[in-house]
Structures are given as structure tokens and as C-alpha cells.
């Protein structure tokens, strides 16, 4: 083992569901480039999805540099390039054969990592950092699992994120400017602000009805995406677009543009409760330190429920029964369960305590930084 510090990095990302995969890869690419000085090439097979979260990206250009990251279109024919010191295949994507052959031909082999999906399940700890020797070539790939415990790869966390979050959450003027930028009027008494980022959800209309008929005003901030048609339908609309505002009873919905990651962080910091989906936004909601509800990516054989339960168990560990049940009931109701109205009521009753827990939870997780762990491991196996 050479303890060699990587100076360059190739990240390969195959976009599967529009935003989650590229969201994680883009975040990792920027962190490795900005905070650790690596020359990062990010190979993406769907520039149009990527462009949704990176406005300056020209989706028709196969090669470009944005924010110090060299962005390349990962086309069916891979150009001949020299492999980087550190090669990351995100979410088990299959690297091009020619690129793998080039890695095998290198005198000093690159460190090759497979960055896996995030899971709180216990088995992740025993799989993290295990080698995966190539069946035919003199190359070894290593599996790297993000996670919530010290025996896993940790979570993506920018160096200054929590400082920026705290500054934002303690600065009323900055928050007011933020809401003004979104054309959301100042808060009224007892109003609750909720961000809603989810997949299509069977409980959506019942949740919206609960907010509409609730005792206090609810302002729902809805980024454009898969949940939008369902919400639009609730308001008697065919569809909706950014900038639209719909009101029924005590519920007002503001449709927001699907934006940059940093703007999404501010939304999570500014809202009282956050509904998030998939992997990347779920992690960001945890850094926001606010009560959150996770809509996990549904799988046909319901295996996703084990992952949901695993995170939930870790998240509520040590909490009083009432708080733990409040989280359990609402997460379950939002993921195919029943009685979301009742579950929402119990969740809101415990909001203050859950917010306190959210801050503690974020602090607890912050000591296990994925980028730092990834670089330390790559030095170890180089």
C-alpha cells in the first residue's frame, strides 16, 4: 500500500431517475475539487437532467468546465483518455470497457471505487470497503457505502455547510430576503411553512386536505417535479409551473422552480418541516436540522420498506416513545400507510421537540464525512 494522495478523479454517473444520482455526483465532484484540490472530471450520460440543477451548463456541449469541474458527456462511444488517480463509479454503474481496459494497462493502477446507495441497514457496515477483484483483469474495485455509523463511509457534507446553516437560521433579515426572492409573503401568526419534494404519493390529497382544513395556515413550497401534477389536480388544475400560487382554505401552495442545490438547502433551512425524497434531499434535510419526512424510492417488491425502517430506527433511537411514534406514524403513512391526517397531527404536536432532536442528530452525523473518508481510504489502498 503506497499511501498515495490522489490528484485527479474521474466520476461516472448514469442518470436513473432525473436528479438523485447526478445530485450526489455533482455534490461530490465539487467537494473534491474545491475542498481537496483534485482535478475532477465528471462523466454524465444525461446532460439535460444535469442542466436542471446547474443553470450555466450547456446541455448540448460534450465537454465544458463549470465551477472548476471538468464535465464530460458520457456517450456510447468513450473517447480514449488517461484514467485518473481515483476512479469513482456511482451507484454501481458499469464503466465503459475501454476505460476499464485503460485502467488495467496503467503501470500504477488507479484506485477504483464503487460508490453505493445510501442505506441505514446493518449489513452495510460489513460490506463497506470490501474489495471486488475484477473477474478477468488485474484490477480491484472497492465498494464504498455511505451510511450513518462510524463503520460506514458517512455522508456528504461540505466543510462550511453547518456554519452557513446556523448563520441563515439565526438571521431573520436573511430569511426575509429569501422569502421575498421566492415571492412568498411574510409569515402570519401560527403559520407553518412546509417544503414538499416527493414522488407521486397515494396520501397526497389527504395530506393537502388536512392542511386545507387545519386550524392554522400552512404554506407549502413545492419545487417542480413528479409531485406537481398531483398537487395541481387537487387545485383543479391540469398542471402547474413555477411561480403559480394556489389557495384553498388554510392551505397555500407556491410552486417553485427546480433549482440549484444551494438554493434547495436554503429552502430546507427556512421551512419548519420538510418532506424529502430519495437519497440526496433526505441527507440535506438531515443537515437542515428540521423535522423531516422521507418518501423513499419505491421498489416493486417493497424491499424499500426495510431501508425506511432502518433509517427510522436509527433516527429515533433514544427518543421518548411519544416522539418516536410521531415520526414512525407519519413516515409510514407517507410511504403507503394509512391515516396521514392523524399522523400529521401527532407530528406537529411534537414539532418543538423534534426540531431540537433534528439539530442534535445533524451534529451527531457531522463527524463522519464521506469525502474525507473516501480520500483516506483511497490513500490507504493506493
Amino acid at each position, binding site marked *: 500500500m503506497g499511501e498515495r494522495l490522489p490528484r485527479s478523479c474521474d466520476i461516472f454517473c448514469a442518470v436513473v431517475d432525473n436528479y438523485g444520482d447526478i445530485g450526489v455526483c455533482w455534490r461530490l465532484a465539487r467537494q473534491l475539487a474545491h475542498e481537496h484540490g483534485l482535478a475532477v472530471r465528471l462523466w454524465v450520460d444525461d446532460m439535460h437532467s444535469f442542466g436542471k440543477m446547474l443553470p450555466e451548463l450547456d446541455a448540448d456541449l460534450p465537454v465544458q468546465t463549470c465551477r472548476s469541474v471538468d464535465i464530460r458527456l458520457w456517450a456510447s462511444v468513450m473517447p480514449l483518455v488517461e484514467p485518473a488517480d481515483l476512479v469513482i463509479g456511482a*451507484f454501481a454503474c458499469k464503466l465503459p470497457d475501454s476505460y476499464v481496459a485503460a485502467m488495467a494497462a496503467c503501470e500504477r493502477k488507479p484506485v477504483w471505487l*464503487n460508490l*453505493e446507495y*445510501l442505506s441505514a441497514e446493518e449489513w452495510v457496515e460489513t460490506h463497506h470497503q470490501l*474489495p471486488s*477483484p475484477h*473477474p478477468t483483469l488485474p484490477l480491484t474495485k472497492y465498494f464504498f457505502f455511505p451510511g450513518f455509523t462510524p463503520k460506514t463511509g458517512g455522508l456528504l457534507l461540505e466543510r462550511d455547510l453547518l456554519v452557513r446553516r446556523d448563520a441563515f437560521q439565526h438571521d431573520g433579515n436573511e430569511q426575509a430576503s429569501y422569502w421575498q426572492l421566492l415571492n412568498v409573503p411574510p409569515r402570519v401568526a401560527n403559520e407553518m411553512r412546509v417544503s414538499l419534494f416527493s414522488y407521486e404519493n397515494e396520501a397526497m390529497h389527504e395530506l393537502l386536505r388536512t392542511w386545507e382544513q387545519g386550524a392554522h395556515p400552512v404554506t407549502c413550497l413545492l419545487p417542480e417535479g413528479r409531485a406537481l401534477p398531483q398537487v395541481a389536480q387537487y387545485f383543479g388544475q391540469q398542471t402547474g409551473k413555477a411561480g403559480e400560487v394556489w389557495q384553498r382554505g388554510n392551505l397555500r401552495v407556491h410552486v417553485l422552480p427546480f433549482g440549484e442545490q444551494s438554493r434547495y438547502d436554503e429552502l430546507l433551512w427556512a421551512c419548519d418541516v420538510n418532506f424529502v425524497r430519495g437519497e440526496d434531499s433526505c441527507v440535506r434535510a438531515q443537515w437542515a436540522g428540521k423535522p423531516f419526512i422521507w418518501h423513499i*424510492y419505491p*421498489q416493486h417488491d417493497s424491499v424499500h420498506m*426495510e431501508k425506511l425502517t432502518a433509517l427510522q430506527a436509527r433516527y429515533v433511537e433514544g427518543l421518548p416513545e411519544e416522539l418516536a411514534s410521531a415520526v414512525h406514524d407519519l413516515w409510514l403513512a407517507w410511504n403507503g400507510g394509512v391515516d396521514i391526517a392523524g399522523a400529521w397531527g401527532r407530528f406537529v404536536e411534537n414539532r418543538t421537540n423534534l426540531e431540537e432532536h433534528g439539530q442534535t442528530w445533524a451534529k451527531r452525523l457531522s463527524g463522519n464525512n464521506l469525502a474525507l473518508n473516501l480520500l483516506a481510504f483511497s490513500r490507504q489502498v493506493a
Partner: protein
Amino acid sequence: MKTAQELRAGNVINVSGEPMVILKAEYSRSGRNGSVVKMKMKGLLSGSGKETVYAADDKFEQIILDKKDCTYSYYADPMFVFMDEEYNQYEVEEENLGDAVNYLTDGMEDKCEVTFYEGKAISVELPNTIVREIEYTEPAVRGDTSGKVMKPAKLVGSGFELPVAAFIEIGDKIEIDTRTNEFKKRAN
């Protein structure tokens, strides 16, 4: 070619030119449609063992080795001795037995499949289902016959412990899935 998820303990595959015998394979779902297989394997040439993980659809060239039906005879420290129908005896190291070691008992009649590489017995596969007697377990829980509540139980002979249904008692015979080490049902 076989995918990683099709491989079982006892299979031998080619990994970068070295024949590797799989001692244990454990399947897990990793996310969305992805899944992984954690495999403990040992090089037949180098003798060195390693723990690895593969995507479930990674493909491997399987090496077909000689196999013989045998029965377990006895333990001759540190080797386990098996015998074929022509009374030839073969010694197998404990490390090469994988999970089969959990179920070996003197006088057992289950047919085992012993695999050979260059004349050396390198692995043993048991039938997928075997029957074993319970040596010890805590008393049965009254009223629970659902089979969902589990408790630990120790097997006669090997002393191996596994979770069984709460209604199982000392002296009961149970069916076990040897691929997963899981209790299936009461056999008597």
C-alpha cells in the same frame, strides 16, 4: 458464465486467472434495483482467503471440477473424513467446509457432494434441506404456533445454534435450509 447471484458455496470461479472456491455467498439488496453479493472465497493455488463483494450481475467463468457423492465418516483432528460409495476416504480441511461444518455429525446419512481440484477435496455441499435433532432450547412458549416468534436452539452433534420457532422443543427434529442456515419447519 454465471452471475454473482447465481454462485453458491462450493462453486469455483476464475478471478483474474486464479481458481477461487466460494466458501460463503450472501445476497443483499443495495438500493433501487441494485443488489450485491458478499463472498468469502479461497484461492485454490495460493490457499489465501479473502472477503469480497460484487454486484449481483457481475459475470464469472465457472470452473467445473470433479465431484463425488460421499457421506461424512468421522473427524480426525484437524481433518474431516468423507467416504465415497467405493469406500475411498477423502480428508477435508475445516476451512473448506464452509457452513456444512454446522451440520456434520457422526453417523449422518445425508449424501454430501465433495468437490475436487487436482485430486484434493476442496469443498463440501450438503443437500439444500437436512433434518437435525434439537439438543437444547428454552421451553416452548404456550399459545404461539405461528412460527414467527423465534428463539435459539442447539443441534445434536455439531452443537450449532440457530433460531427456531418458539414452539420447538428439546428432542424435536427440524428441517433446515443449509444454504441460508434457516429453520424451515418441524420434521416430526
